[in-house]
């Protein structure tokens, strides 16, 4: 399929939305936004709006799925029908959503002390309210906050950042159009303190040098998101209001 000619990068290195190559979109993270969930978080990354709810640790249903030596982590990534620009998305899980649910689970698992609660389960529900590229990494960033908010023991928070190639140059945090029209993208999740990578996918071709450079750029961007995650959790509980219910 031939791509329409869209200029993603100006001569002076500005992107379609005016960002530089190693500039993240505007972001905001909030923790503990839902009352009914054990832990929750909300993230805005550019036009992405994602809500995450965590339930657990709790008893496993169905029971036979319980693991004798560790906690079962289940993730469900799902996009709301109005989350995408073009047509209304069918609410049934697509092949893509099933895959993303799996990779998110695998990106979060290394950070959690699963063995502390054997024979239990924790469910992570990720709802994409509005999508504009890099939703899987934004979901990971929010899910880590929601897990911490639920009191799940963790080694570190997990931060997701995407990087891609537009007009032959590496660019951090791809937006929807850059993802579609660019030459490749690489979602990466990592634990910043431990400097361990928990997710690395790639679409398109990258040279060895490009990958090394990409990882460096991702690390720098991840620190900013990591600070925001910590701020969100601290703010939520520092001004601990004594909850007064007005009836």
């Amino acid at each position, binding site marked *: 399929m031939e791509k329409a000619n869209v200029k993603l990068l100006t001569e002076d290195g500005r992107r379609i939305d005016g960002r530089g190559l190693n500039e993240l979109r505007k972001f905001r993270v909030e923790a503990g936004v839902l009352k009914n969930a*054990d*832990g929750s978080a909300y993230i805005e990354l550019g036009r992405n709006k994602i809500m995450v709810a965590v339930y*657990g*640790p*709790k*008893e496993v249903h169905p029971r036979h799925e319980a693991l*004798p030596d560790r906690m079962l982590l289940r993730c469900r990534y799902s996009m709301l029908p109005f989350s995408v620009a073009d047509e209304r998305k069918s609410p049934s899980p697509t092949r893509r959503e099933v895959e993303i649910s799996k990779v998110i689970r695998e990106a979060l698992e290394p*950070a959690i*002390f699963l063995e502390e*609660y*054997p*024979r*239990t389960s924790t469910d992570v529900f990720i709802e994409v309210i509005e999508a504009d590229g890099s939703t899987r990494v934004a979901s990971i960033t929010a899910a880590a906050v929601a897990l*911490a*908010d*639920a*009191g*799940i*023991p*963790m*080694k*570190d*928070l997990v931060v997701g950042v995407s990087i891609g190639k537009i007009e032959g140059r590496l660019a951090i945090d791809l937006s929807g159009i850059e993802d579609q029209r660019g030459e490749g993208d690489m979602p990466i999740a990592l*634990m910043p*303190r*431990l400097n361990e990578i928990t997710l690395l996918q790639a679409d398109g071709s990258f040279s060895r040098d490009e990958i090394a450079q990409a990882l460096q750029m991702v690390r720098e961007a991840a620190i900013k998101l990591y600070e925001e*995650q*910590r701020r969100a*959790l*601290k703010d939520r*509980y*520092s001004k*601990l209001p*004594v*909850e007064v219910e007005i009836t």
Partner: protein
Amino acid sequence: MPIHVSGGQVIVPGEFVAEGSCEVMGPHIISGKRYYAKVLSVAVIEKPKRVRLIPLKRRYIPTEGDLVVGKIIDVGPTYWLVDINSPYTAFLQVSEVFPRPAPKERDLSEIFQVGDLVAAKVLSFDFSHDPLLTVKESKLGKIEKGLLVEVASSRVSRVIGKKGQVIDYLRSILNVELIVGRNGRVVVMGSEPEREALAAYVVQRLCAEPYVADPLEEAKKLLSRQLTRGEST
């Protein structure tokens, strides 16, 4: 400085707490000589070289000998299933209710029905088997009346206080009995509904804050504020 956090600070998982020769209490990870937090918690500096991390949210994990307040959720042929506000559902076996030999062919729902509250003790628990409960001790068994207050299980110890001082205080002032379940369920029983409600309020408020330095003082303060307000109106 061996301790890198200040008192009252919220600590997120993976955050650097302290290093070198100091004591870190509460859930943490040690890597070399550095201490990191494991769960979302609040730091309390207890001594110049001791920091305690109090988890903000934590599911109750049964421990042998704990007094818990359970809710019957199912009646089996020789046991009851009890919800103890934990990821693990507890069993209460007939042999732990009656002296041996247990009466045969008896409808167990005559003793505890679904929905009943029981005060029980954790007989045994390891992570590979569900916890077993017993009611074969004084003051254990079905809870017939009272107000149930649900609080965070990680904060319930302050309702007891040092050597049960808070319980004793509430009992002496309000004439109420308290059953404090380690699983975060507290039952307040009193002869007068107002006093019951007042005690329930104190319990709830005591557990609302992530950290209370002196639970007894706090309880006194809360109660006196309520009592003076009651008199003025």
